[in-house]
């Protein structure tokens, strides 16, 4: 499997750059996730259910 991503006759640079770009991006998202505020997450995840408007047959 790894032979597929080695030795690409000059094309390695694109592959390595792409993977590096991905790593950097992933690390940034990771740092951001770690720094997220718990209260904020709580508020955000409640958004879809807080607009609950019961339908007629659920009201009683």
């Amino acid at each position, binding site marked *: *499997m790894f032979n*597929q*991503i080695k030795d*690409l*006759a*000059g*094309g*390695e640079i*694109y*592959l390595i*750059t*792409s*993977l590096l*770009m*991905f790593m950097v*991006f*992933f690390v940034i*998202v*990771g740092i*951001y*996730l770690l*720094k*997220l*505020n718990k*209260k*904020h*997450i709580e*508020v*955000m*995840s*409640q*958004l*879809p*259910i807080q*607009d*609950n*408007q019961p*339908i*007629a*047959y659920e009201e009683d």
Partner: protein
Amino acid sequence: MQLEKFTYDNKIVRNFGIATLVWGIIGMTVGLLAAMQLFKPAMNMGSQYTTFGRIRPLHTNAVIFAFVGNAIFMGVYYSLQRLLKARMFSDVLSKIHFWGWQLIILSAVITLPLGFTTSHEYAELEWPIDIAITIIWVVFGVNMFGTIFKRRERHLYVAIWFYIATFVTIAVLHIVNSFELPISFMKSYYVYAGVQDALVQWWYGHNAVAFFLTTPYLGMMYYFLPKMAGRPVYSYKLSILHFWSLIFIYIWAGPHHLLYTSLPGWAQSLGVAFSIMLIAPSWGGMINGLLTLRGAWDKVREDVTLKFMVVALTAYGMATFEGPLLSLKQINGVAHFTDWIVAHVHVGALGWNGFLTFGVLYWLIPRIYKTELYSKKLAGFHFWVGTLGILFYAVPMYWAGFTQGLMWKEFTPEGLLKYPNFLATTLQIIPMHVLRSIGGALYLIGVIAMTYNLAKTMLGAKLLANEPAEAMPLSKVIIETSSADKAWHRVLERKPMKFMVLSLIIILIGGMVEMMPTFTIQSNVPTIASVKPYSALELQGRDLYIREGCVNCHSQTVRPFRSETERYGEYSKAGEFVYDHPFLWGSKRTGPDLHRIGGKYSDAWHYNHLVDPTSMSPGSIMPPYPWLIEQKLDITTTASKIRAMQTLGVPYPGDYDKRANDDLKVQAEKITLDLKQNNIKVKSDREIVAIIAYLQRLGTDIKANKETIPSNQ
């Protein structure tokens, strides 16, 4: 500040819902017809407008853009208003969006059977319709962003991020894959040729799956699943990670559709590497969805909408696990061009898109009508018949795929192909195709039952067209209560335009890294001196090949396997396709590859085979094309076609457009004479002569080549 009173627009949601049901039934019925044509050629109905080659794109366009498209808009218009606590930005834009989209679909239903097609899969519609799609898509975007701007909820929930990414990426994909040079009202040539055209098409094709069939549905999942289950999503953090990694990785994976072709090797490997990485975000999302139901599994037993959601998520998990496996070169070598791929996409389409749509419809329609579902029992029946339909569809198709893929590669101990006649491998899997259409029929029965059920629900109550709601308006000044409010992502969630631009940059990076080198570096597409442009007659024949949709069943790219070079001849080189606007490599071999068909059979063989395939290949499932001998070739377009090709850089002599038809007639006479010597009388001005000329030219240029061809693998 005072509470503001406003209303949600439920009418537009209902309209998109009805359109989803109607187009769903039409699209799936056409699919069932196409499936039956593959074991009973009489189902082609002897008319050029109903042959498989024209019906199959109609099926794919109808289910993707009409069924799923309308379902997306239904889900977005419902959830967006509620998540933002605001009515849609403009009722007029909503209406233009709705009717514009239906008109586009209607134009597809008319033009595809007429044979107006660009031949790019899932982008078959011709240039005037492409322009209409762009306009309506912008209308959708303006309406969505307008709503976001007038919102009463400061932060954008993760579902809306998925909607924004969908809007931006589909716009980019559609525009880049629609660079066509029009030559008449309903005919154009792609600006790209050969390998480059293939790369653009599959970058588009793969990401249409990602950003039309996946991201908007994930947005809907993140909104509707918590609502149905009555509990928040399992992990909001995971949903953020899911979003950013999914959109970043997906955009790179397109080249896995072109493994072992003449696409540069590094681009293929890039596609493979990113495809494998794609498992992580996809499964992250699936697990996040399933775990949202933790502690609510008792509800799943009771509630049919949740049952649909669970199967949808499971199908998503299966399809996104299988996708990366299929992109491994070793597996792809067997699976590509077979029914395995058809099985794979249908697990996604029937399971993930279909079932999630059904779940949302069953949940949403009673709510906007303030009533109960007409029959829960019938919905339960739909769930089981639908699930059975998926199984009956997928299992035989996997079986057919494995069987055919292995038969193509099997050698005898003497080193000869065990099944040298391609037709033997087709006939072997006919029973599987019969079973598959039973699966499709079961699934369709379920959809009809749902339509009846929902129609009864709607007819028995009154739509609450404008649903009252109230919310506090947003203060103009943001009061930051904690330091975390200043965090960059928190700020970003408040700034939708910046959010859109960031998503755009992220999807553009992947596309550009892949495409720029292929487009700019000459060495990536080595030229071959002996490859010359098509003659005028061959060019016309090629356009007939496109019109008849031959590419739906026949590939034109021989992969560098011994099993393929034995069967078809020398493997395909990038330099052979430099004048192919568009490329016609295909993605499925219902019939054999045609890249080396030129010179393999006589003109008379092709004539008889096109008029009645079974006369040359007993048992063949190819439909007959008798109209090709009745219809006159339209040569009024020749000059403009040649000029268009010259504009695109095909090296015809300067004044060739004026001489092209003389040239065309000479070649046509030659073929007619050859046919006459074999007791076939046909006029030289008929379409069949042009298509024979094209087929006889295919893959022959390379034989005159004296130099070594540089490898690009």
